[in-house]
């Protein structure tokens, strides 16, 4: 089948503003949008740039805006999106070139919630034990692949770049509700700040955008609830 694409092109070193470029390629309905992009880069226009690494929905490199929704190009089939397929870089992060955005602001907000296990106690002889119920509590938020689809789909983040954003709150949730972790109080302090959890307006764009289907808005709700019980 013939597939039409409209891709937003921009080179921060040369262009004043972005422009749309159209491509028409032959593709199978079961091809992924990533395959089509790779075809364009290999055979039509080598100057088109985008990130991709594993190409199997695990590394989270190829998140982009496809027909207005944030998705992974490697998990989106051509037959599932209407033609012309409009492809743009993620919204809310500075564009470096074409579909590549500067992820630095995103990872700063990721680091700020201490996204690692903190426990200074002497480890038990074999391993830290956890009941299935204790594990279940944060199971959903362990699935994050840091693709930034959620944060860059969030209108609160678009209007306020200081907002921690859903991805960062997902990481906070993952460790705050982990029974083996000991730094919940510190993380709750961070998410309780003005630019933390209270900027969330429960718009649900994040939950809709997440390629791992994490119920992010619910996780943020649990953080708010934890703060209410923790502070009052």
């Amino acid at each position, binding site marked *: 089948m013939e597939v039409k694409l409209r891709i937003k092109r921009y080179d921060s070193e040369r262009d004043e503003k972005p422009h749309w470029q159209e491509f028409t390629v032959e593709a199978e309905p079961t091809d992924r949008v990533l395959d089509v992009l790779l075809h364009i880069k290999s055979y039509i226009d080598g100057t088109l740039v985008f990130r991709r690494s594993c190409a199997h929905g695990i590394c989270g490199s190829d998140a982009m805006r496809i027909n207005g929704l944030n998705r992974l190009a490697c998990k989106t089939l051509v037959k599932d999106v209407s033609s012309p397929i409009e492809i743009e870089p993620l919204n809310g992060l500075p564009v470096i070139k074409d579909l590549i955005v500067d992820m630095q602001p995103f990872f700063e907000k990721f680091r*700020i919630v201490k996204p690692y296990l903190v426990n200074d106690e002497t480890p038990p002889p074999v391993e830290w034990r956890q009941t299935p119920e204790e594990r279940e509590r944060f199971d959903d938020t362990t699935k994050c692949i840091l693709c930034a689809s959620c944060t860059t789909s969030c209108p609160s983040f678009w*209007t306020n770049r*200081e907002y921690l954003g859903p991805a960062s709150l997902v990481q906070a949730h993952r460790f705050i509700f982990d029974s083996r972790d000991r730094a919940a109080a510190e993380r709750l302090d*961070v998410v*309780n700040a*003005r630019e933390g959890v209270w900027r969330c307006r429960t718009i649900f764009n994040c939950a809709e955008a997440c390629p791992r289907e994490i119920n992010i808005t619910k996780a943020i709700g649990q953080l708010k609830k934890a703060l209410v019980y923790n502070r009052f």
Partner: protein
Amino acid sequence: MTDRFVMSRARPSSNFELATWLYMRVSGVLIAFLLLGHIVVMHVLHHVDEVDYSFAAGRLANPFWRIYDLVLLGLVVSHGVNGARIVIDDYVRSHGLRTLLKTALWTVGILFLVVGAFVLFTFQPVTG
């Protein structure tokens, strides 16, 4: 880490946003019930033809309704002002404009409260 973010994080930890978030939920529920009571009295129990000056004056003669209206006024103004404050925080990035808008907002809010409370406390029915 950018300096900007480190700075915003270094602000003294306060539960203000948490408290106002909770207040919005509690006041919202209270307002819903109080408004329901208001609508039932004004529009269900009494036909629209009955609701005139003397009806309103009669209601205000009862201290219960004065307190009821005062509570409703306080809740509605604070709920509304806080909601608008959050919208300003969300959308206005310029520090100066933000301060200006919030000052205007609080001024108008307090003015509404004062005028409303003044009427509720000092209302005397005009006869004849």
